[in-house]
């Protein structure tokens, strides 16, 4: 065994991590080696703790990280949770760290409607090329100008208006021997409101799912701050997967990520789960919340009403778009939607991409608050 081989062995681990989709920068590798040297190391635990601290695996993937570590260095415990792997194609990039289904809520059986629901069909879907490309293309072009905005907290120089910019005036005055010559103004920048879209991927929405995901992909690329989730029997965050520019690849990636295609729906539970994860509910604060779902709740309709009520208090606008509303004589009739109705700013037609896009473009007419 030559002297270089322990080093090579350590470097082999960082190479393995990169291969598994962890982002490991050279400076992190160097820090790790320095850390091992610092710690002694007296036991393998020192090396592992040093690796965790310096290579900084995202918390969602800690278990996977530890599994890889054990398998590589100890040759044991080699059960890397496969479900946590996102994809192994060459598309993998540093962008989609920590891609994996978000926490599952509840168990499969549910008292009411147990016979109809609960079938989590763990299936990867195939996507055909969409036919509504034109609509989406126009939507993407029109959105940047019409996306809802709010006033940010960052100040910028402005032309006029009520807010004077004392700092700039003083600075100017310094250049003029302490004389104030003209008033300067400042204004607060406008920022895009985040758009959070929750897409129902249950069996009853089967026909629409593909179009909705194509819409979500267009939205992610047309506006800056967008978060997309799917829900059926579980809640999955797919924003990162959709960030791939090529729609076909992005949808493929998404299809692998979402594990509950065409299963049952537990809307109330899905929304409650969304609210219960502080990281997610923080995304909805002051945002435009769009739910694409028919509102056919298999669980407790009251839970759904409550969840929507809570969401509506966090979000700036809460919009429910259902394909059932394509019928001109539509009025919410399902128990779930009736419970949610008082808290929704808008219940609209989600039957076609054109109408969904129309609703989104319309939102900006509500003035920035």
């Amino acid at each position, binding site marked *: 065994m030559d002297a270089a081989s322990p080093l090579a062995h350590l470097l082999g681990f960082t190479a393995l991590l990169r291969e598994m989709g962890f*982002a490991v*920068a050279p*400076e*992190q590798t*160097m*820090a790790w080696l*320095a*850390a091992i*040297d*610092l*710690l002694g190391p007296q036991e393998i*635990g*020192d090396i592992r*703790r*040093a690796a*965790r*601290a*310096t290579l*900084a695996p995202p*918390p969602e993937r*800690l278990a996977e990280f530890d599994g890889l570590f054990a398998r590589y260095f100890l040759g044991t415990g080699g059960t890397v949770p496969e479900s946590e792997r996102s994809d192994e194609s060459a598309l993998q990039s*540093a962008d989609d*760290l920590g891609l994996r289904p978000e926490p599952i*809520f509840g168990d499969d059986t549910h008292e009411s409607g147990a016979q109809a629901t609960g079938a989590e069909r763990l299936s990867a879907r195939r996507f055909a090329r969409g036919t509504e490309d034109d609509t989406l293309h126009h939507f993407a072009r029109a959105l940047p100008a019409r996306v809802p905005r709010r006033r*940010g*907290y*960052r*100040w910028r120089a402005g032309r006029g208006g009520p807010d004077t910019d*004392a*700092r700039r005036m*003083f*600075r100017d*005055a*310094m250049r003029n*021997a*302490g004389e104030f010559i003209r008033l300067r103004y400042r204004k607060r920048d406008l920022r895009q409101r985040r758009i959070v879209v929750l897409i129902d991927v249950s069996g009853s929405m089967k026909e629409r799912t593909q179009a909705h995901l194509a819409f979500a992909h267009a939205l992610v690329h047309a506006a800056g701050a967008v978060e997309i989730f799917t829900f059926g029997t579980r809640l999955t965050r797919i924003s990162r997967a959709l960030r791939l520019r090529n729609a076909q690849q992005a949808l493929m990636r998404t299809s692998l990520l979402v594990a509950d295609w065409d299963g049952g729906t537990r809307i109330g539970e899905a929304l*409650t*789960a969304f*609210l*219960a994860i*502080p*990281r997610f*509910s*923080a*995304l909805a604060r002051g945002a435009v919340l769009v739910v694409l779902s028919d509102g056919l709740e298999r669980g407790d309709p009251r839970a759904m009403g*409550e969840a929507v009520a*809570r969401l509506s208090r966090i979000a700036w606008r809460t919009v429910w778009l259902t394909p059932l509303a394509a019928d001109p004589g539509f009025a919410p009739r399902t128990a779930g939607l009736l419970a949610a109705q008082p808290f929704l700013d808008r219940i609209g037609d989600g039957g076609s991409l054109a109408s969904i896009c129309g609703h989104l473009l319309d939102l900006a007419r509500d003035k920035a608050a």
Partner: protein
Amino acid sequence: MVVRRTLVGIGSPQELENALRAAYYLADRDLSTAAYLALALGKPLLLEGAPGVGKTEAAKAIAGVLGRTLLRLQCYEGIDASAALYEWNFPRQMLALRQQGPDSQPIDIYRDEFLIERPMLACLRRPEETMLLIDEIDRSDHEFEAFLLEFLSDFQISIPERGAIRAYERPVVILTSNRTRELHEALRRRCVYHWIEYPAPEREMRIIMMRASGVGERAARAVVAAVGRLRREPLVKHPGIAEAVEWAEAATLLNQQGERWPEAFRRSLGVVLKDEDDLVHITPKIDAILAEAGA
């Protein structure tokens, strides 16, 4: 890479862990290792975790152990250089200029006395006696994060009127984040990273006993069990460690005033759950939770 093997006599994670315990902070091995490595390698320490797991407390305890002044920079959207770095004292400059007579010496209005130090500049100028805490970095916007990146990579800032100011030794910097959004990858990789979990029941109990002196072991055990249960409920705000300590204290106080045990916990529920929706959700279940916790 400059490595300082020991800092104020702390030469290993174990020693740091002991020192932190003496400062009333119970760190686990992972945290003390990460903190020790950050100090030794001269890198910033990034602590992430749910609200209320003790990130800021950890930073305060580390500052105490190092015997340094803690400079805390609370982040918010729109935070800018004049709040984080420095600002000129314009009114003073103005007065100095006005006072100047026609024959007096020209005055340099960019002297130190006209400079208002903000935390980041203060930390650069006195790196051996201060520690910088950049709190809740996830609340700031991308502009500030990019600005911070520059600061954290070479610990240098430039003031146009004065030129670059550089720390003569690497300052100790701790960043915390609630992870309401992902931080930029470039920022993460410059730091030593630690994800703080809610403590294991045994450790949380020791924290409660240490922080709240009047609390009995039985009450502490019950609080830990009940809080652990509450953290699995779908709540808007899960109780953190501080809430657990307060609950134990509040219930003990009520108990001392003659309230019976499970009732004392129930009546002081307001210090743990501070959201109307959460209270509505938990109230029907609270009896079962308390019974299960052995309150």
